[in-house]
């Protein structure tokens, strides 16, 4: 049952998205993100779930010709982050993202995590060092790297690199964190680590995660949205979606009959 006492952190209202080639990738999506909850987006490849996720940090702005229509309202300030007057950089300062493949920068472990702070013009060395340590602890990586913070990030394993990317995203105290299939390039143990991490992170922030892995959605998320061909087919709390889906299509996808 949906918990009515939880506040809504962000919500999309009649959100449409068009790629530069004119393809309408999202069709009038209305969906809330509850604060301190994990919302999972599931659906077959090409259904628009990553497109939807990347609207939240205006990632589509990087490529000319893409067009948003509709709103994504962020609470409590009621800002429509898609509005033309809103600086995408400001949006990304509040909403951070972890990618499908770990993408550390060609820098040391320390500098990778400090990147967001440096970009925000933080000059105080003490503050940066404290934040980096806190973020690495938050990403359960501190114990593994505390003795080699000046090593290149590429020397870490894939799972460690992904946790480094989480630490990097965490260091700037974001309100929402987006995960775009964060474990699809990782082995089962690293995957379990990341999932555990996500469950802990929601104490502090709101999470939206795209996943191809149905078990993962069932394990980590509080709410699940099933998307198909750019439409939001069904949304609800994860238990309900996985045990008593109202739509036949959702049930077929979840049970593996399709997709």
């Amino acid at each position, binding site marked *: 049952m949906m918990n009515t006492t939880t506040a809504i952190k962000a919500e999309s209202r009649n959100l449409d998205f068009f790629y530069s080639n004119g393809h309408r990738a999202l069709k009038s999506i209305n969906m809330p993100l509850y604060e301190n909850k994990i919302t999972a987006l599931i659906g077959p490849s090409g259904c628009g779930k990553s497109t939807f996720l990347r609207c939240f940090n205006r*990632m589509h702005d*990087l490529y000319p010709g893409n067009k948003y229509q509709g709103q994504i309202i962020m609470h409590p300030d009621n800002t429509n982050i898609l509005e033309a007057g809103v600086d995408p*950089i400001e949006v*990304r300062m509040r909403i951070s*993202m972890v990618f499908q493949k770990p*993408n550390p920068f060609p*820098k040391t472990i320390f500098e990778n995590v400090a990147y*967001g702070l440096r970009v925000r013009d933080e000059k105080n060395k003490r503050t940066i060092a404290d934040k980096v340590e806190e973020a690495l602890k938050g990403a359960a990586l501190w114990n593994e790297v505390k003795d080699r913070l000046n090593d290149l990030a590429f020397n870490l394993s894939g799972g460690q690199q992904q946790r480094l990317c989480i630490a990097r995203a965490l260091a700037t105290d974001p309100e929402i964190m987006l995960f775009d299939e964060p474990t699809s390039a990782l082995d089962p143990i690293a995957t379990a680590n990341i999932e555990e991490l996500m469950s802990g992170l929601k104490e502090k922030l709101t999470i939206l995660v795209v996943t191809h892995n149905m078990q993962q959605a069932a394990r980590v998320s509080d709410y699940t949205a099933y998307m198909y061909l750019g439409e939001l087919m069904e949304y609800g709390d994860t238990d309900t979606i996985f045990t008593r889906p109202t739509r036949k299509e959702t049930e077929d996808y979840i049970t593996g009959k399709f997709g």
Partner: protein
Amino acid sequence: MTASFIGNTLIKSITLKLKPLMDIATNSPSLITTTISPRLAKNLRRDIKGRVIEFILMLAALSAVFTTFAIVAILLYESFGFFKTVSLVEFFTGKEWTPLFEDAHYGIMPLVAGTLTTSMVALAVAVPIGTIGAIYLSEFASHKTREITKPILELLVGVPTIAFGYFALLFVTPLLQKIYPDLPGFNMLSAGLVMGVMIVPYIASVAEDAMRAVPMSMREGSYAMGATRFQTALRVVTPAATSGIVAAYILAISRAVGETMVVAVAAGQQPNLTFNPTEGAATITAYIVQVAMGDLPHASIGYQSIFAAGLVLFAMTLGFNIIGHIVRKKYREQY
């Protein structure tokens, strides 16, 4: 001895264990005689064709290697004759280079100084402009701007260097003389500046390729952290492309050190031991051109001196390339 003994025993024990299986194999003919279908059999014609092609490819590859070795061999051979008359000490420590004079001196340093000075001036121009140009083209220019700018930039490479030489002598030098009236007509500053402009496309083009090869996912990672375009270009893309950018610099250095016409025309022909770019001085290449254009008897000391000078030039370029190789290895792309 012991090893082979153990090995033999091992083989024996395996053979014993496998004997029943082997019996089956040898006794049932269907398991060993397989007839190859004619379509799978080796095709003799195709085989020969493949070998011929491989041989031709190998010849093409070897021709470059062979030429290099031939050049080095001739350089060494002719220089050997030169160093029979001139001691290495005089060659490397002498402060005068006048092999064609009655009172001949064979100190290579003036030529080396000229080469280094013109190259440094050229690099001082080309490295910043080329790098900034590459960053602009790769990270800031729109697709359309890039498609127009890059070919034009690469067109500069096609301009004959003699044209650049006279551009330096007849246009840039008079221009500079308006600022520094004391500047001589032949000077390394003008030659170096024009050479720098000439090299910009090399750096811009190679460095831009390196930066564009940086995966988009890395840029997205930076933007997602709230970085601006400028921060992304400078703090993420450029470090990620270091190896390629260094390669571009090395290419530029080799080009500057080996450049001939611009310096021969605009920097003068007078060996002059100085690192002051406002003076005129001959470079190694300018000297080689000068001597090669005259009619020196074969095997004379003056004739041999150009090979000694050429050898020094070769060693310098090789040295820069080796340094470049080491730096590239250190910063090789790891994404």
